[in-house]
């Protein structure tokens, strides 16, 4: 499969701030790729480099097989972009802006435009100054989904949408995937990412700390196990990968590295299992682990 986006070792500084510090990112064609990271991690900076709005200090980047800086216009013909903070011209109507954006890209599918306006319940006759934040985002989203492009770059596109519209958005992204388009989705809404994304990249302080399918990443984290046993547990504490073991009579709660789960289950069944709940790690836990590592590292270095 060809790569829609491939970035390696990207560096970008603003004065003394190192916004990107050797960032890597690979997005396969046709996938929905989640782009996660805490505020200020460099997500928007990366996206702006991919759009040729910022010039990277060093590192290699290719978007749709071309250089995003020197071939900006050619690349942009096949890209639709939705910023997190949409500002519109105060005296242009939403419909005018949608058509403008569509024509400035590869063109607009008018049937899909009409359908999207209906689904997002957008009034296209209102002027830019009278839209709320959510409605401004809908203008940009309708323009992006109705544009005839290969790659959608969405930078926290749903931060102002209500839950109903969030659902419409998720269906739209799923449809984009079915049509074979590639989506790079930067988001803080983890349920959204879990629902939509084939693969995710997590970045922190301008560097990629994790990248892969959700299944891959889950493998790297711990599963919570709660069990009620027939007899007293035996030797659980000695098993590798077991953490936070809490034994109260025949009741056992523990966390285990997911790749060591097998040994734990065998040990439990030796004692006889009456009931068992096992919770796979959520993306949220995954996320928190990476975000909180930051604090842990700082403590360790003191």
């Amino acid at each position, binding site marked *: 499969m060809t790569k829609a986006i491939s970035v390696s070792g990207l560096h970008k500084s603003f004065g003394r701030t190192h916004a990107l510090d050797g960032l890597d990112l690979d997005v396969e064609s046709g996938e929905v790729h989640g782009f996660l990271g805490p505020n200020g991690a460099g997500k928007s900076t990366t996206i702006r480099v991919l759009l040729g*709005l910022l010039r990277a200090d060093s590192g290699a980047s290719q978007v749709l097989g071309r250089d995003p800086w020197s071939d900006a*216009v050619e690349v942009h013909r096949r890209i639709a972009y939705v*910023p997190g903070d949409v500002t519109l011209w105060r*005296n242009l*109507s939403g*419909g*005018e802006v949608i058509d403008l*954006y569509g024509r*400035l890209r590869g063109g607009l599918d008018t049937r899909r435009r009409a359908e999207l306006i209906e689904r997002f319940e957008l009034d296209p006759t209102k*002027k830019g100054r009278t839209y709320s934040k959510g409605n401004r985002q809908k203008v940009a989203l309708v323009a992006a989904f109705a544009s005839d492009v290969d790659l959608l770059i969405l930078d926290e596109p749903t931060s102002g949408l209500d839950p109903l519209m969030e659902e419409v958005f998720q269906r739209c992204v799923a449809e984009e995937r079915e049509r074979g388009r590639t989506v790079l989705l930067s988001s803080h809404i983890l349920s959204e990412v879990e629902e939509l994304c084939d693969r995710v990249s997590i970045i922190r302080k301008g560097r990629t700390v994790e990248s892969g399918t959700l299944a891959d990443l889950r493998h790297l984290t711990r599963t919570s196990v709660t069990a009620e046993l027939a007899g007293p547990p035996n030797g659980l504490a000695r098993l590798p990968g077991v953490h936070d073991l809490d034994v109260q009579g025949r009741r056992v709660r523990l966390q285990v590295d997911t790749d060591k789960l097998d040994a734990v289950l065998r040990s439990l069944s030796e004692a006889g299992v009456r009931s068992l709940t096992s919770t796979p790690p959520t993306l949220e836990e995954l996320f928190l682990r990476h975000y909180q590592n930051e604090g842990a590292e700082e403590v360790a270095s003191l």
Partner: protein
Amino acid sequence: MTATSFAVRSGGSRQLAGTGTLLRFALRRDRVMIPVWVAVNALMVLSMPNTLKGLYGTAAERAGLMRQMETNSSLRAMVGPVFDDSLGALTAWRVGVYAAALAAVMSLLIVVRHTRDEEESGRQELVASGMVGRRASLTAALLTAAVANGVLALLVVAGLAGQGAAGALALGLGIAGVGMVFATMAAIVAQLTESARLARGLAAAVLGAAFVLRAAGDSATVDGSSVLTWVSPLGWLENLRAFAGERWWVLLLIAGAAAVQGAAAYELAGRRDIGMSFLPTRPGPAAGRLASAGALAWRLQRGSVLGWSIGFFLAGVVYGGMTEGAADLVGDNEQARAIIERMGGQAGLTDAFVSAMVGMLGLIAALYVVASVLRLSGEETSGRAEPVLAAAVGRLRWAAGHLVIAFGGAALIMLLAGVGFAVGYGEDVGAILGACLVQLPAVWVIGGAAVLLHGVLPRAAVAAWGVAGAVLLLGWVGPALDVPQAVLDVSPFGHLPKLPGGGMSWAPVLVLTLVAVVLVSAGLAGLRRRDVTT
């Protein structure tokens, strides 16, 4: 803390709660802008007695000047009648109206900036959700303007006291008073429109109308007694007659106008919701025809191009009409020519007048070109340029749309000024059109400076206003102030051939055009290389 205690103590007038805090905040935000405006204005006024002493040193020269002003309606239209031959009276005559106009511009900018701008950006919502009374923001804006005008008045009174305390007091209070008349007028306009840009435009149009009315009135009568002069707040300053038997009651007129307008602004503000206006927004089309960055640029700028076109055409008509008066003057009087020449014109009275007027319009066109070029900067910093540049639009094409309107628009408005002259005057059409167009290379150089700043130092792009302002001041008062030639030469306008009347020389025109091309190219090269700012 202060806001809280103020609100609690003043029970009944809680509408004003927080005014003090907002005033200090506004003064802090304007800590550069207000001192610059006040200092430039005060400098212009206070340097005038010395200059005039050099120009009209003897009693005979002053008497001659007064005779000239009585007989020449065109000169009166430009600078108003002279009421007395003392140095103080001549100072009030020469700069009073202009200082008041500058104070008016400063005041309307301050008021719109702290009222409609705040509402339009949404910042006002957050401020108003605090312990802030309903009338506090408008009051703080007007007080900010009052502080600026008050300091200006103090400087003028103190600086001119040597010419006569009463006259200095009258002139200082008059200039500041006219400033406040326009501050309160802007406060009304800010209630009417949803857009701060439109509010500034309308307020500036009122100021322009006031200037034209005064000019028309003064050209009609010898002593400023025309109804037209009395309709214009700038005419009030003239009729205050500082240093020439002050008519103190005119100050009451000024104060009364400011008070009535202020009351009207409060009344209007009390009747509307935050962010709303009395000129409501109509819905637009559900589908659009804009299909390129150039079309978008035109859509964004066409309103202002139209406004400038009308303004320049009307100015041409008005000045063209006055030219008739200059031509009608019996004989080609030495003294009158001397005056006009000192204003930067050329020999031959009609030509001199036209040349001076066209030169002034050229300087004002520099403001248009800067405003138009800086739309690029506004689009970029507001984040609206980003999605456009993220579409299949190259940076050069994006910039080109706005630059064609800026540089071509400058040509258009100068041409329309020439057409206006033709309508108002009716002779020498070709020569006057030529005189208008010959201003363009200098206008373009200023536009080129703005492009360069935006392309290379995007965060300092607003400094282009400083360039235009400096050039305007040099052209406006530079010759009268006996500024060294080396300084005058900094302005591109100083190098233009003086048309009509003077000989046409292509060298400076071509060199200036080349300079403009180089500046624009360098700016665009910078724009292509740099990061897009937010």
